[in-house]
C-alpha cells in the first residue's frame, strides 16, 4: 500500500475515524493493528519478521537496562541481531557477487560459469527500523530508560506513517508524545492535510514526471550529448528530492492527523552553502543518526584532525552502503566523505582569513557557495542513480561531450512537467510557511565560521557592495509587499479550502499513467 494509492485513500480515513472515535485507552492498540495491516499489505510474511525483531529488541532492551555488569556484551548481542538481520537480507547477494567477481578475476579457469541465484527478498523498510532498534538499544546502554510497555514499543517500531521510509524516529520523542493525551486542533488538521496534499503533488506530479527524463538519460549514458546529460542529472536531483520529501510530507501529514509529530527530513537542501550544510538539510534523520551512532562512537572530532577525517569518510562510506548493496552507492558515500573532509579543511582556512570570511558572508559569496555545493551534489547523484560505477563515469564524461542531443529536451516538452513546476512555484509563493522557510533556508553555514549568518534580503554588516545592497533592498521590499498580500488572502479559510482541493485535483491531473515506485523503498 503506497501513500499515493487508492488503497491508502480508503485505509487512512478509516483508521483516522476509528482512532479518534475510540476510547483513549484503545487508541494505541488500534494504531498498532493498523500499522501491522499496513506493513503486511506488501507481503504477509514481513509482519512476522517485524514482530520477531520487535520482540527481540524489546527483550534485549529490558535485559540491558536491568544488567550492570554485562551491559556491553548485551549491547553487542543486540547490535548483532539487528545488523545481522539487515546484512543477511540486504548484503548477502552483494557480498557473494563481489567475492565471486574477485574469485573469477583472480582464477578465471577455476571459477564456475555463473554465480548461483539467490532469492532473498528484501523486506520493506528494514534499513529504517533496524536503525531505530539500534538507536533504542544504544540509548539504553547510555543510560536512558527503556520502554516497558510492549504495545508502546511495538507501536514505536511499526508506526505506519514512518514505517517504510522514515523519518528515523527517536524513541524518547515518540514516547513523550504517547504519554501526552491525544489532541487534534483545527490547526493540526490543516497542517496535516497541507502536508498530505503537498507530498502527493511532489510525488505524483513532479517526481513521477521527471522519471522518464532520468531513465532516458541514464539508459543511454553511452550516447547522450552534453545537454541531455545535464538535463537528466538535474532531473534526477529534483526527482529524488520530490520523491523522498513528498513521501516524508505524506508520512508527517498522516502522523499529525493522528496527533503525532514526526521530525522533518528536509530543509531546502539545494540551498546549502557547503556539503556539511547539505547534510544538515538532506535526510536529516539519517544524518543525525549517523552522527550520533556512528561518527561520535568512532571518536568524532575528539581524536585529532586525521582521525576526524577518517571518521567522516568511514561514516559517509557506510552511509552510502546503507542506501544500497552496490559499489556505486559505496562510491557515492566515499565521494561525500571526501567532500566533507575538503569542506572542513576549507572551513578552517576561511576562519583564518578575513578576506574569505567577508567573501562568504556576501551575497556573491553565498551564491557561489550554493552553486558549487549544488554542482558537487549533482556529481554525487550521478553515482547514486547509475546502475554501475562504469555507467556513472560514462555519463559524467558525456556532460562535456558535444555530441548531438535533443531526446530528453523532446521528452521534457512532451511531458506536463513545465506546467507542474510552474504550479509548484506558484504554490511556494502563495504559501506563507513555505515562503518563510525558503527565506530562512538560504543562509550560509560554513562549518564553525559564521555565528550570525546573513540571510537573503537583509543588508550584510560586512562587505556587501552598494549595488548588492540596492538590489537586496529592492528585493526585500518586493518580498514584504508580496508577503503581506499573501497573508491577507491566505487568512481566509474558504480560500485555503479551495486551494487544498485544487492542489489535490492538480496532483491527480498531473499523475502519469504509470506510477513510479518510491525511490527510497529499495533501501
Amino acid at each position, binding site marked *: 500500500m503506497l501513500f499515493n494509492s487508492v488503497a491508502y485513500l480508503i485505509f487512512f480515513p478509516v483508521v483516522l475515524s476509528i482512532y479518534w472515535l475510540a476510547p483513549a485507552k484503545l487508541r494505541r492498540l488500534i494504531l498498532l493493528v493498523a500499522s501491522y495491516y499496513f506493513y503486511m499489505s506488501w507481503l504477509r510474511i514481513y509482519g512476522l519478521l517485524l514482530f520477531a525483531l520487535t520482540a527481540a529488541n524489546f527483550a534485549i532492551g529490558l535485559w540491558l537496562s536491568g544488567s550492570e555488569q554485562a551491559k556491553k556484551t548485551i549491547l553487542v548481542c543486540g547490535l548483532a541481531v539487528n545488523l545481522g538481520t539487515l546484512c543477511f537480507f540486504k548484503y548477502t547477494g552483494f557480498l557473494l557477487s563481489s567475492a565471486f567477481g574477485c574469485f573469477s578475476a583472480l582464477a578465471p579457469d577455476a571459477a564456475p560459469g555463473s554465480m548461483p541465484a539467490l532469492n532473498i527478498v528484501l523486506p520493506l523498510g528494514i534499513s529504517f527500523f533496524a536503525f531505530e532498534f539500534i538507536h533504542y538499544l544504544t540509548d539504553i546502554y547510555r543510560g536512558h530508560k527503556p520502554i516497558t510497555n510492549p504495545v508502546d514499543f511495538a507501536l514505536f517500531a511499526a508506526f505506519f506513517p514512518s514505517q517504510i521510509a522514515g523519518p528515523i524516529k527517536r524513541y524518547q520523542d515518540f514516547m513523550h508524545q504517547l504519554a501526552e493525551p491525544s489532541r487534534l486542533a483545527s490547526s493540526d488538521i490543516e497542517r496535516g492535510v497541507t502536508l498530505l496534499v503537498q507530498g502527493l503533488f511532489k510525488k505524483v506530479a513532479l517526481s513521477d514526471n521527471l522519471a522518464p527524463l532520468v531513465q532516458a538519460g541514464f539508459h543511454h549514458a553511452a550516447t547522450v550529448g552534453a545537454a541531455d546529460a545535464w538535463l537528466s542529472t538535474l532531473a534526477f536531483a529534483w526527482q529524488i528530492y520530490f520523491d523522498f520529501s513528498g513521501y516524508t510530507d505524506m508520512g508527517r501529514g498522516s502522523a499529525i492527523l493522528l496527533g503525532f509529530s514526526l521530525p522533518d527530513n528536509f530543509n531546502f537542501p539545494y540551498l546549502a552553502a557547503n556539503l556539511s550544510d547539505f547534510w544538515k538539510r538532506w535526510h536529516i534523520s539519517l544524518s543525525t543518526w549517523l552522527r550520533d551512532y556512528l561518527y561520535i562512537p568512532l571518536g568524532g572530532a575528539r581524536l585529532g584532525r586525521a582521525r576526524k577525517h577518517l571518521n567522516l569518510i568511514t561514516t559517509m562510506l557506510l552511509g552510502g552502503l546503507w542506501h544500497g548493496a552496490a559499489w556505486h552507492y559505496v562510491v557515492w558515500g566515499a565521494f561525500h566523505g571526501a567532500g566533507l573532509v575538503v569542506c572542513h579543511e576549507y572551513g578552517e582556512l576561511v576562519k583564518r582569513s578575513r578576506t574569505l570570511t567577508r567573501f562568504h558572508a556576501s551575497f556573491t559569496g553565498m551564491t557561489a557557495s550554493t552553486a558549487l555545493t549544488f554542482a558537487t551534489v549533482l556529481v554525487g547523484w550521478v553515482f547514486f542513480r547509475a546502475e554501475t560505477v562504469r555507467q556513472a563515469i560514462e555519463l559524467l564524461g558525456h556532460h562535456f561531450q558535444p555530441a548531438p542531443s535533443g531526446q530528453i529536451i523532446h521528452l521534457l516538452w512532451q511531458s506536463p512537467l513545465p506546467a507542474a513546476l510552474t504550479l509548484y512555484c506558484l504554490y511556494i509563493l502563495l504559501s506563507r510557511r513555505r515562503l518563510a522557510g525558503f527565506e530562512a533556508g538560504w543562509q550560509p553555514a560554513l562549518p564553525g565560521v559564521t555565528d550570525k549568518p546573513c540571510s537573503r534580503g537583509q543588508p550584510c554588516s560586512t562587505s556587501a557592495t552598494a549595488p548588492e545592497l540596492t538590489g537586496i533592498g529592492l528585493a526585500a521590499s518586493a518580498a514584504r509587499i508580496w508577503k503581506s498580500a499573501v497573508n491577507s488572502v491566505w487568512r481566509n479559510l474558504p480560500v485555503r479550502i479551495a486551494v487544498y482541493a*485544487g492542489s489535490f*485535483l492538480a496532483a*491527480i491531473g*498531473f499523475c502519469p499513467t504509470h506510477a513510479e515506485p518510491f525511490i527510497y523503498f529499495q533501501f
Partner: protein
Amino acid sequence: MPATRLDTKYDTRIAVRSRRSTVSFACELVASLIVVAAVLEGIFLWAGIGEQEYLKPDSATGYSPMPGKRVTWRQEGFSQSLFNSQGMRDREIASDRDARSLRIAILGDSYVESLQVQQEDSFCQVLEKELNTTCRQAHCRVLNYGVSAYNLGQMYLRLKELAVKMHPDLVILGLRIDQSPQLDANPRGGFLFARPTFTVDAQGNLRRDDSLMQRWNQSWDGKRIKATSWLREHSRIWGVISQSLSSLNMTKKNTFVERPYTEQWPVVDGLLAAIEQLCDQHHCTLMIAALPGPGAEHNLGQLNLLRRSASKLNISLVDPLPAFDEALRSKRNLFFTWHMNEAGHRLLAQQILPVVKASLHLPVVSPAAETQSIRDTATK
C-alpha cells in the same frame, strides 16, 4: 430567570450574524473555488491534461469523436491533435473535390486513429505524403476515419454515414488479426460496447440490432454521459475526474466471454459483403489491410479466414505480417506496448503503398526506391 426582551433581541442578532457569516463563508468558498478552477483549467490547458475524453454518444455508430476536440494523448506514446469538424483525426476536408484529386478513406480502430503518434507520423499521413511525392498525376488525400475500439460493424456504419459523403476513390479497411472481431453484444461492457450489433439470419441476411445501445442510453451510465456532455467537451478538470474514475473501474474484472472468432465469422462475411456493396454503389474500390499486433504470434487462422472472405468478394488484401515478422527478428522496435510507434507506422505505409497505387492505377516504382523515399520522409 425569564428571558427579557433585551435577551431575545441579543439572541436574534447573534442568530442573524451567524446566518450572515455562514452565507458569507459559503460565498467566499464558492468564489475561491471558481478562481481555483479557472486557474486549474488554464494550467491543464497549457499542459494538455484532462484531454482524453473525446468520444461522445452517436445514434448511428454508438459513439464517435467530438468535432473540434483537442486531444493530448499520453497513455501510450505521445500526440497532440485536433479532431476536425466531422470528428475525424484529420485536417478539414471540403465535401466538394477537385476532379484531379484522389481520395482514400481508411477505416479502422485505434490502430488507424493512431493517437499514440503525432498525426504526421501516422501511416495515413505517411502514405499520403508518399503518394504525393511519387505521383504527379493527381493530388492524393488520405482520410483517417479510424476510431478507437471500433469493430467491423461500426466501420461499416461510419463508412455509410460519413465516409461515402466525401466520395472516396478507394476505401481501406484496417482489420486487426491479433484480436477477435468483437462483434458480440457485451451488455456489461460500458460506453465503448454500447453500439449497434449485427447478426446474420437463416437466409444469410445481415440484421442490425440497436437494443443494446438503446438500453445503455437509458441506463444510469448513459444518462450521466449525456448530462455531462458539455463538461466532457470543454472542461479539463472534468476530464481528470472522469479519467480517474475510469481507471478505478478498470480494476474490476471483466467477466464477459466472447465467442470464438470462427463463430463470429459469418457476421464478418455479411459485413464485408455489405461494405463491398456500398463501395460498388459509390463507385469506389475496396481494399483490406491486415494489421498485426505487437507480439510475434499472429492469429493465422483468422488471417486465413480473412483471406478467404476477401477472395470470395474479390477484395484486395494487404498482408504486412511477413515484413513485421522480419523486423521483429532483426530486433527493430515497432510498437509501444500495444500500438505501433512511428517506425511501425512507416513500415505499414511502406507495405500498403504499392497495393494502393495498383488499386488507383498509379505508376508503381521499385519497392526499394519507395522504401528509401519513406525513410527520407521520416528523417525530414
